[in-house]
Protein backbone atom coordinates (compact mmCIF):
# COMPACT_ATOMS: atom_id res chain seq x y z
CA UNK A 1 0.00 0.00 0.00
CA UNK A 2 1.42 3.35 -1.00
CA UNK A 3 1.35 6.18 1.52
CA UNK A 4 1.07 8.77 -1.19
CA UNK A 5 -2.22 7.37 -2.38
CA UNK A 6 -4.13 7.44 0.90
CA UNK A 7 -7.65 8.73 0.46
CA UNK A 8 -9.04 11.50 2.61
CA UNK A 9 -11.30 9.00 4.37
CA UNK A 10 -8.27 6.93 5.24
CA UNK A 11 -6.43 9.97 6.52
CA UNK A 12 -9.45 10.92 8.60
CA UNK A 13 -9.49 7.45 10.09
CA UNK A 14 -5.82 7.75 11.06
CA UNK A 15 -6.45 11.18 12.55
CA UNK A 16 -9.25 9.68 14.62
CA UNK A 17 -6.89 6.99 15.82
CA UNK A 18 -4.41 9.65 16.93
CA UNK A 19 -7.23 11.48 18.63
CA UNK A 20 -8.38 8.54 20.67
CA UNK A 21 -4.90 7.44 21.61
CA UNK A 22 -3.64 10.83 22.65
CA UNK A 23 -6.88 11.68 24.44
CA UNK A 24 -6.35 8.73 26.68
CA UNK A 25 -2.67 9.51 27.07
CA UNK A 26 -3.44 13.11 28.03
CA UNK A 27 -5.74 11.83 30.77
CA UNK A 28 -3.04 9.62 32.27
CA UNK A 29 -0.46 12.36 31.97
CA UNK A 30 -2.85 14.71 33.72
CA UNK A 31 -3.20 12.30 36.63
CA UNK A 32 0.56 11.97 36.88
CA UNK A 33 1.36 15.66 37.09
CA UNK A 34 -1.91 16.65 38.70
CA UNK A 35 -2.57 19.31 36.09
CA UNK A 36 -4.97 19.79 33.28
CA UNK A 37 -3.48 18.56 30.02
CA UNK A 38 -4.74 19.82 26.70
CA UNK A 39 -4.49 18.07 23.43
CA UNK A 40 -4.34 19.47 19.94
CA UNK A 41 -6.20 17.97 17.03
CA UNK A 42 -3.89 15.33 15.59
CA UNK A 43 -2.39 15.77 12.19
CA UNK A 44 -1.70 13.04 9.70
CA UNK A 45 1.34 13.83 7.64
CA UNK A 46 2.94 11.98 4.82
CA UNK A 47 6.48 13.25 4.82
CA UNK A 48 9.91 12.59 3.38
CA UNK A 49 12.63 11.67 5.86
CA UNK A 50 14.07 15.17 6.08
CA UNK A 51 10.64 16.74 6.53
CA UNK A 52 10.03 14.40 9.45
CA UNK A 53 13.02 15.86 11.29
CA UNK A 54 11.87 19.39 10.51
CA UNK A 55 8.58 18.66 12.29
CA UNK A 56 10.37 18.82 15.62
CA UNK A 57 12.98 21.46 14.98
CA UNK A 58 15.46 19.91 12.57
CA UNK A 59 17.83 16.93 12.63
CA UNK A 60 20.34 18.52 15.02
CA UNK A 61 17.85 19.51 17.71
CA UNK A 62 18.47 17.68 20.99
CA UNK A 63 15.35 15.83 22.02
CA UNK A 64 14.31 13.41 24.71
CA UNK A 65 12.61 10.55 22.97
CA UNK A 66 11.05 7.39 24.19
CA UNK A 67 10.57 4.75 21.58
CA UNK A 68 8.16 1.85 21.78
CA UNK A 69 7.94 -0.85 19.19
CA UNK A 70 4.40 -2.02 18.57
CA UNK A 71 4.05 -5.76 18.32
CA UNK A 72 0.96 -7.83 17.79
CA UNK A 73 -1.36 -7.64 14.81
CA UNK A 74 -0.28 -4.17 13.79
CA UNK A 75 3.41 -3.29 13.60
CA UNK A 76 4.95 0.09 13.96
CA UNK A 77 6.76 2.50 16.20
CA UNK A 78 5.53 5.07 18.67
CA UNK A 79 7.66 7.95 19.86
CA UNK A 80 6.86 10.12 22.83
CA UNK A 81 9.00 13.19 22.32
CA UNK A 82 9.85 16.00 24.71
CA UNK A 83 12.33 18.82 24.38
CA UNK A 84 15.20 18.79 26.87
CA UNK A 85 13.64 21.61 28.91
CA UNK A 86 10.22 19.95 28.88
CA UNK A 87 11.61 16.66 30.07
CA UNK A 88 13.49 18.42 32.87
CA UNK A 89 10.36 20.30 33.91
CA UNK A 90 8.41 17.06 33.95
CA UNK A 91 11.04 15.25 36.00
CA UNK A 92 11.22 18.11 38.50
CA UNK A 93 7.50 17.67 39.06
CA UNK A 94 7.61 13.93 39.42
CA UNK A 95 10.65 13.53 41.65
CA UNK A 96 10.17 16.85 43.47
CA UNK A 97 13.68 18.01 42.84
CA UNK A 98 13.66 21.59 41.70
CA UNK A 99 17.28 21.81 40.68
CA UNK A 100 17.32 18.73 38.52
CA UNK A 101 19.21 18.97 35.26
CA UNK A 102 20.32 16.35 32.78
CA UNK A 103 23.79 17.85 32.94
CA UNK A 104 24.05 17.14 36.70
CA UNK A 105 25.73 14.17 38.28
CA UNK A 106 24.87 10.72 37.04
CA UNK A 107 23.30 9.38 40.19
CA UNK A 108 20.24 11.61 40.12
CA UNK A 109 20.11 11.13 36.37
CA UNK A 110 19.64 7.44 36.74
CA UNK A 111 16.61 7.94 38.91
CA UNK A 112 15.30 10.67 36.66
CA UNK A 113 15.68 8.54 33.60
CA UNK A 114 13.86 5.65 35.15
CA UNK A 115 11.12 8.06 36.28
CA UNK A 116 10.91 9.37 32.75
CA UNK A 117 10.73 5.87 31.31
CA UNK A 118 7.94 5.08 33.70
CA UNK A 119 6.03 8.19 32.63
CA UNK A 120 6.56 7.24 29.04
CA UNK A 121 5.41 3.74 29.78
CA UNK A 122 2.19 4.87 31.42
CA UNK A 123 1.38 7.56 28.89
CA UNK A 124 2.22 5.52 25.82
CA UNK A 125 0.61 2.44 27.29
CA UNK A 126 -2.66 4.30 27.57
CA UNK A 127 -2.22 5.64 24.04
CA UNK A 128 -1.88 2.15 22.62
CA UNK A 129 -4.55 0.61 24.83
CA UNK A 130 -7.04 3.14 23.53
CA UNK A 131 -6.07 2.34 19.94
CA UNK A 132 -6.27 -1.34 20.56
CA UNK A 133 -9.69 -1.12 22.23
CA UNK A 134 -11.06 1.11 19.51
CA UNK A 135 -9.89 -0.97 16.58
CA UNK A 136 -10.15 -4.32 18.30
CA UNK A 137 -6.65 -5.07 17.10
CA UNK A 138 -4.08 -6.56 19.40
CA UNK A 139 -1.19 -4.11 19.93
CA UNK A 140 1.50 -4.65 22.50
CA UNK A 141 4.08 -1.98 23.28
CA UNK A 142 7.66 -3.08 23.87
CA UNK A 143 9.52 -1.85 26.93
CA UNK A 144 10.42 1.84 26.59
CA UNK A 145 13.73 2.77 25.02
CA UNK A 146 15.01 6.18 25.97
CA UNK A 147 17.46 8.32 24.11
CA UNK A 148 18.52 11.92 24.59
CA UNK A 149 20.20 12.93 21.40
CA UNK A 150 19.86 14.62 18.01
CA UNK A 151 16.42 14.29 16.46
CA UNK A 152 17.81 12.94 13.20
CA UNK A 153 19.76 10.21 14.96
CA UNK A 154 16.88 9.20 17.19
CA UNK A 155 14.05 9.31 14.69
CA UNK A 156 15.68 7.42 11.84
CA UNK A 157 15.40 4.30 14.00
CA UNK A 158 11.64 4.38 13.48
CA UNK A 159 12.21 4.71 9.74
CA UNK A 160 14.36 1.63 9.23
CA UNK A 161 11.57 -0.83 8.50
CA UNK A 162 9.55 1.73 6.59
CA UNK A 163 12.49 2.89 4.50
CA UNK A 164 12.80 -0.53 2.88
CA UNK A 165 9.43 -0.08 1.24
CA UNK A 166 8.87 3.64 0.99
CA UNK A 167 10.60 6.98 0.65
CA UNK A 168 7.89 8.50 2.79
CA UNK A 169 6.71 7.96 6.34
CA UNK A 170 3.23 8.44 7.62
CA UNK A 171 3.18 10.25 10.92
CA UNK A 172 0.18 10.62 13.13
CA UNK A 173 1.32 13.54 15.23
CA UNK A 174 -0.49 14.67 18.36
CA UNK A 175 0.68 17.36 20.69
CA UNK A 176 -0.34 17.47 24.32
CA UNK A 177 0.40 20.38 26.63
CA UNK A 178 -0.40 21.49 30.13
CA UNK A 179 -2.44 24.67 30.47
CA UNK A 180 -0.42 26.38 33.20
CA UNK A 181 2.22 27.73 30.89
CA UNK A 182 4.97 25.67 32.48
CA UNK A 183 6.08 24.49 29.11
CA UNK A 184 5.36 20.79 29.16
CA UNK A 185 4.43 19.65 25.69
CA UNK A 186 4.79 16.20 24.36
CA UNK A 187 4.55 14.94 20.83
CA UNK A 188 3.33 11.51 19.95
CA UNK A 189 4.58 10.18 16.66
CA UNK A 190 2.87 7.03 15.55
CA UNK A 191 4.55 5.39 12.57
CA UNK A 192 2.60 2.38 11.37
CA UNK A 193 4.41 0.01 9.06
CA UNK A 194 2.96 0.17 5.56
CA UNK A 195 2.02 -3.50 5.30
CA UNK A 196 -0.17 -3.29 8.36
CA UNK A 197 -2.15 -0.23 7.28
CA UNK A 198 -4.82 -2.20 5.36
CA UNK A 199 -5.44 -4.22 8.52
CA UNK A 200 -5.95 -1.04 10.46
CA UNK A 201 -8.36 0.35 7.85
CA UNK A 202 -10.22 -2.89 7.65
CA UNK A 203 -10.77 -2.85 11.41
CA UNK A 204 -12.24 0.61 11.04
CA UNK A 205 -14.63 -0.55 8.34
CA UNK A 206 -12.85 1.11 5.42
CA UNK A 207 -12.47 -0.94 2.30
CA UNK A 208 -9.10 -0.74 0.61
CA UNK A 209 -8.21 -1.85 -2.88
CA UNK A 210 -5.09 -3.71 -1.90
Amino acid at each position, binding site marked *: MKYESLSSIEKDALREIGNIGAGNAATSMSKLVNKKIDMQVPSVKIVG*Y*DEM*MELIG*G*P*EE*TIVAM*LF*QIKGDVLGTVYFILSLEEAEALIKKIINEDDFSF*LNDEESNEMAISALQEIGNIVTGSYLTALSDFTNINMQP*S*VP*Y*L*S*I*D*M*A*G*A*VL*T*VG*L*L*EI*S*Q*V*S*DYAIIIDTRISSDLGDGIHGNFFLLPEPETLPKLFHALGIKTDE
Partner: protein
Amino acid sequence: MNDTKTIVKVGIADLNLVTAPDIIRTSGLGSCVGVVIYDPTKKVAGLSHVLLPDSKLAKQANFNTYKFADTAVPILIDKLLKRGARKYALKAKIAGGAQMFNFTSTSDIMRIGARNIEAVQLVLKENQIPILSSDVAGNVGRTIEFDPSTSMLKIRKVNKDEFYI
Protein backbone atom coordinates in the same frame (compact mmCIF):
# COMPACT_ATOMS: atom_id res chain seq x y z
CA MET B 1 35.37 36.11 -7.13
CA ASN B 2 34.18 33.11 -5.22
CA ASP B 3 35.81 33.21 -1.82
CA THR B 4 32.72 33.06 0.37
CA LYS B 5 32.09 29.66 1.90
CA THR B 6 28.82 28.02 1.14
CA ILE B 7 27.66 25.11 3.26
CA VAL B 8 26.07 22.41 1.16
CA LYS B 9 23.66 20.35 3.24
CA VAL B 10 23.03 16.70 2.56
CA GLY B 11 19.75 15.18 3.75
CA ILE B 12 18.94 11.63 4.78
CA ALA B 13 19.45 9.11 1.98
CA ASP B 14 20.96 11.82 -0.19
CA LEU B 15 24.38 12.76 -1.53
CA ASN B 16 26.11 15.80 -2.97
CA LEU B 17 29.47 17.27 -4.00
CA VAL B 18 31.49 20.37 -3.14
CA THR B 19 34.64 22.07 -4.32
CA ALA B 20 36.78 24.28 -2.04
CA PRO B 21 36.17 26.78 -0.52
CA ASP B 22 32.69 25.39 0.01
CA ILE B 23 32.05 22.89 2.74
CA ILE B 24 29.59 20.03 2.98
CA ARG B 25 27.65 18.82 6.00
CA THR B 26 25.02 16.39 7.15
CA SER B 27 23.18 16.54 10.47
CA GLY B 28 21.91 14.02 12.96
CA LEU B 29 23.60 10.82 11.88
CA GLY B 30 22.45 7.99 14.10
CA SER B 31 22.67 4.50 12.69
CA CYS B 32 23.21 6.16 9.32
CA VAL B 33 26.76 6.51 8.06
CA GLY B 34 28.18 9.67 6.53
CA VAL B 35 30.68 8.74 3.83
CA VAL B 36 33.07 11.44 2.67
CA ILE B 37 35.13 10.71 -0.42
CA TYR B 38 37.58 13.33 -1.67
CA ASP B 39 40.54 14.12 -3.85
CA PRO B 40 42.89 16.11 -1.57
CA THR B 41 44.76 17.80 -4.38
CA LYS B 42 41.82 18.73 -6.57
CA LYS B 43 39.97 19.79 -3.39
CA VAL B 44 36.73 18.23 -4.47
CA ALA B 45 34.67 16.14 -2.07
CA GLY B 46 31.43 14.21 -1.98
CA LEU B 47 29.27 13.23 0.97
CA SER B 48 26.71 10.46 1.10
CA HIS B 49 24.25 9.98 3.98
CA VAL B 50 23.66 6.23 3.88
CA LEU B 51 20.53 4.95 5.62
CA LEU B 52 20.65 1.22 4.93
CA PRO B 53 23.49 -1.19 4.06
CA ASP B 54 22.25 -3.16 1.10
CA SER B 55 19.88 -2.47 -1.79
CA LYS B 56 18.72 -6.10 -1.55
CA LEU B 57 16.68 -4.86 1.42
CA ALA B 58 14.59 -2.71 -0.93
CA LYS B 59 11.07 -3.95 -1.37
CA GLN B 60 10.26 -1.26 -3.92
CA ALA B 61 10.51 -1.43 -7.68
CA ASN B 62 12.01 2.03 -8.13
CA PHE B 63 14.00 2.57 -5.01
CA ASN B 64 16.15 5.56 -4.19
CA THR B 65 19.70 4.42 -4.95
CA TYR B 66 21.12 7.08 -2.60
CA LYS B 67 19.59 5.23 0.35
CA PHE B 68 21.84 2.16 0.34
CA ALA B 69 25.59 1.87 0.89
CA ASP B 70 26.14 -0.54 -2.01
CA THR B 71 24.41 1.71 -4.54
CA ALA B 72 25.11 5.21 -3.18
CA VAL B 73 28.89 4.96 -2.85
CA PRO B 74 29.57 3.94 -6.50
CA ILE B 75 27.31 6.78 -7.66
CA LEU B 76 29.22 9.19 -5.44
CA ILE B 77 32.56 8.00 -6.86
CA ASP B 78 31.24 8.35 -10.40
CA LYS B 79 30.04 11.90 -9.77
CA LEU B 80 33.41 12.82 -8.23
CA LEU B 81 35.28 11.55 -11.28
CA LYS B 82 33.02 13.59 -13.54
CA ARG B 83 33.80 16.63 -11.37
CA GLY B 84 37.54 16.15 -12.04
CA ALA B 85 38.64 13.98 -9.13
CA ARG B 86 41.18 11.25 -9.96
CA LYS B 87 40.23 7.72 -9.04
CA TYR B 88 43.69 6.74 -7.72
CA ALA B 89 43.83 9.84 -5.49
CA LEU B 90 40.50 9.28 -3.77
CA LYS B 91 40.47 9.00 0.03
CA ALA B 92 37.60 8.45 2.44
CA LYS B 93 36.55 9.45 5.94
CA ILE B 94 33.50 7.99 7.57
CA ALA B 95 31.38 8.68 10.66
CA GLY B 96 28.14 7.39 12.18
CA GLY B 97 26.78 3.88 12.46
CA ALA B 98 25.69 4.22 16.08
CA GLN B 99 23.16 2.10 17.86
CA MET B 100 20.83 4.70 19.32
CA PHE B 101 18.66 2.42 21.42
CA ASN B 102 19.81 -0.54 23.42
CA PHE B 103 17.31 -2.97 21.97
CA THR B 104 17.05 -6.34 23.60
CA SER B 105 15.73 -7.90 20.42
CA THR B 106 18.36 -9.43 18.21
CA SER B 107 16.60 -8.66 14.96
CA ASP B 108 19.03 -7.70 12.23
CA ILE B 109 17.40 -4.38 11.50
CA MET B 110 18.13 -3.29 15.06
CA ARG B 111 21.88 -3.56 14.64
CA ILE B 112 21.71 -1.59 11.44
CA GLY B 113 24.47 0.80 12.53
CA ALA B 114 27.09 -1.96 12.60
CA ARG B 115 25.81 -3.34 9.30
CA ASN B 116 25.98 0.09 7.69
CA ILE B 117 29.61 0.48 8.77
CA GLU B 118 30.52 -2.96 7.39
CA ALA B 119 28.75 -2.26 4.10
CA VAL B 120 30.48 1.10 3.65
CA GLN B 121 33.90 -0.39 4.46
CA LEU B 122 33.29 -3.16 1.97
CA VAL B 123 32.21 -1.00 -0.94
CA LEU B 124 35.13 1.39 -0.33
CA LYS B 125 37.51 -1.55 -0.29
CA GLU B 126 36.06 -2.89 -3.53
CA ASN B 127 36.78 0.48 -5.08
CA GLN B 128 40.27 0.61 -3.55
CA ILE B 129 39.60 3.79 -1.63
CA PRO B 130 41.47 3.92 1.70
CA ILE B 131 39.63 5.10 4.82
CA LEU B 132 42.05 7.57 6.40
CA SER B 133 40.04 8.15 9.55
CA SER B 134 36.70 7.28 11.03
CA ASP B 135 34.53 7.90 14.06
CA VAL B 136 31.94 5.16 14.07
CA ALA B 137 29.71 3.01 16.29
CA GLY B 138 28.88 3.93 19.90
CA ASN B 139 25.43 5.13 20.86
CA VAL B 140 25.44 8.82 20.05
CA GLY B 141 24.26 10.99 17.18
CA ARG B 142 26.73 12.97 15.10
CA THR B 143 26.72 16.01 12.85
CA ILE B 144 29.61 16.10 10.43
CA GLU B 145 31.13 18.76 8.23
CA PHE B 146 33.88 18.30 5.67
CA ASP B 147 36.13 21.02 4.37
CA PRO B 148 37.80 19.99 1.08
CA SER B 149 40.39 22.77 1.38
CA THR B 150 41.86 21.19 4.55
CA SER B 151 40.59 17.59 4.08
CA MET B 152 39.38 17.68 7.69
CA LEU B 153 36.12 16.24 8.94
CA LYS B 154 34.55 18.10 11.84
CA ILE B 155 32.37 16.06 14.18
CA ARG B 156 29.83 17.36 16.68
CA LYS B 157 28.03 15.30 19.30
CA VAL B 158 25.46 16.33 21.87
CA ASN B 159 27.12 17.83 24.99
CA LYS B 160 30.61 17.28 23.61
CA ASP B 161 33.22 19.59 22.15
CA GLU B 162 33.63 19.52 18.42
CA PHE B 163 36.66 17.71 17.12
CA TYR B 164 38.35 16.97 13.82
CA ILE B 165 39.44 13.71 12.28
